[in-house]
């Protein structure tokens, strides 16, 4: 399994792919950082890092489908899927190795943005609890999105289509929160509570306030697990009904 993980990491870092995406992520974060500082009220010199994440989810999440689009689609296109599926590795291990590789690239992206809080720390004060929770929350959210992106890559078998579908679905997860806040949904308390239960953005709000709730952690972990299992089943299903 480690061999596959290593090969995946090499495929990201021995090409410009990962570097370009990390640079793009940093660019979005820097813009958000600069605009946050520029919009500070003149008398209270305060701004929030969680706020940067919260305001720019739309752009951050845009990057994840691009990161995951090749994971299975390229294997299918290049006929290298045969090599993996006839190796002694189980489908579960193949999916996990690929998932962990993408997750590592995502973690490296996030680590790169730590430059800004560390810089602020040198010249000002920082609320570490809120910052750590925001990073953790964003990482967990990203984990679910990576699992979804990989599932799409495996289902469609085409990198471009999986990226486009991924963008639509991931922006859709952001819309859930908007729908939850609408007057129509608010009129039905049960529907409202159901929507707020699945809304990842609302769960992120707790993290951004420095609150680490076990419930949210379990939600993100179980959502990831469900999507990964779905991916394993999808690959097995395709093998059985191969044509």
């Amino acid at each position, binding site marked *: 399994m480690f061999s596959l993980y290593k090969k995946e990491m090499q495929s990201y870092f021995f090409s410009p792919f990962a570097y370009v995406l990390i640079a793009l992520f940093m660019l979005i974060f820097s813009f958000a950082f600069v605009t946050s500082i520029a919009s500070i009220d003149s008398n209270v010199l305060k701004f929030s890092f969680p706020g940067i994440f919260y305001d720019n989810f739309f752009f951050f999440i845009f990057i994840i489908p691009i990161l995951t689009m090749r994971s299975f689609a390229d294997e299918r296109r290049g006929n290298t899927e045969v090599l993996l599926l006839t*190796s*002694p590795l189980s489908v579960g291990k193949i999916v996990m190795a690929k998932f962990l590789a993408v997750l590592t690239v995502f973690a490296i992206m996030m680590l790169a943005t730590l430059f800004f809080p560390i810089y602020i720390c040198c010249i000002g004060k920082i609320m570490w609890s809120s910052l750590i929770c925001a990073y953790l929350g964003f990482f967990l959210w990203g984990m679910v999105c990576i699992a979804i992106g990989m599932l799409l890559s495996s289902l469609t078998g085409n990198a471009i289509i999986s990226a486009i579908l991924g963008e639509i679905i991931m922006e859709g997860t952001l819309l859930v929160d908007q729908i939850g806040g609408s007057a129509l949904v608010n009129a039905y308390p049960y529907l409202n509570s159901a929507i707020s239960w699945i809304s990842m953005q609302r769960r992120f709000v707790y993290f951004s306030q420095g609150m680490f709730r076990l419930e949210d952690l379990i939600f993100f972990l179980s959502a990831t697990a469900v999507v990964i299992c779905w991916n394993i089943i999808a690959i097995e299903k395709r093998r059985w009904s191969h044509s």
Partner: protein
Amino acid sequence: MVEIKNLSKYYGRNLAVKGISFDIQDHEILGFLGPNGAGKSTTMNMIAGYLPSSNGTVTINGFDITEQASEAKKCIGYLPEIPPVYPDMRVEEYLLFVAGLKGVPRAERKKQVQSSMQRLHIEDMHRRLIRNLSKGYKQRVGFAQALLGDPKILILDEPTVGLDPTQVMEVRNLILELKQDHSIIFSSHILAEVSAVCERVVIINKGEIIAIDTIDNLERNLTADTVLHLTAEGDKDKISRLLKDIQGVSSVSDIKELGENRCSYQIELKNESVRNEIISVLLNNQCSIVEMHLAQLNLEQVFLKLIQEKKKSSLEQLIDETKQDNPYHQED
């Protein structure tokens, strides 16, 4: 050893492989022959564990390919029709990755990769990106990959496609060399290749096995073994008449003039025992025999004959079925 029992594969409603059974003994090279779309690659994919079968079992060294997939797959080296190579990797890097994937211990990986590169003569290419290699080299990299992990069973799906004639010879020799410590299933539609390398062949058509035997047996059994080729000197009409008069000769055909006073004849016999009589009759009539041999079909003819026979029998079956289905059908 590989045992295949009653293996079937449905693609939707279409039955691509129809309950085939055969086995591969240790240190044996089994040829897998069939026209395009016969089900060769599907069967090989099922044996290698890439596609699950709809019915039946594949047992590899005692391990079932679906029940004990990991153990069974460790015994297999598979070269699919299109070599499974990553274009962005370098040859050595790719082979080291595959060795890791197959669970070769870290300390042995380098050694195994070196030896498989040597066997396929690709050491000079070890730093090259696979995308820049020619088709033949890609094929050899794919072959080298199949040898990693020292699998006891090699499944090679058309391993010589895209190679030049010298490389084809090299690969054939390599396969013969590998026979010493591997069992090999080797598919091809180039019959000369199969007869050069394999001892036993499985001929498959439309998902069904139409023959399993050694090449010699197939050639012998399917030969109209009562056909005799004769080249003799003498008057064509006289010889032809003499031959026809012999009891036990059913026909004399395909008479070709080969030169001055020399002709070749194809003689169909009711039984082989009349050969001596033919010789004595000809000699008594002052005709000299230049050459006489029993006709034997080569593998190519055997293959075509088997497939044609199959077509004929399925056509007859279809006609019978139509007759049964149509009660108003009247025989002419």
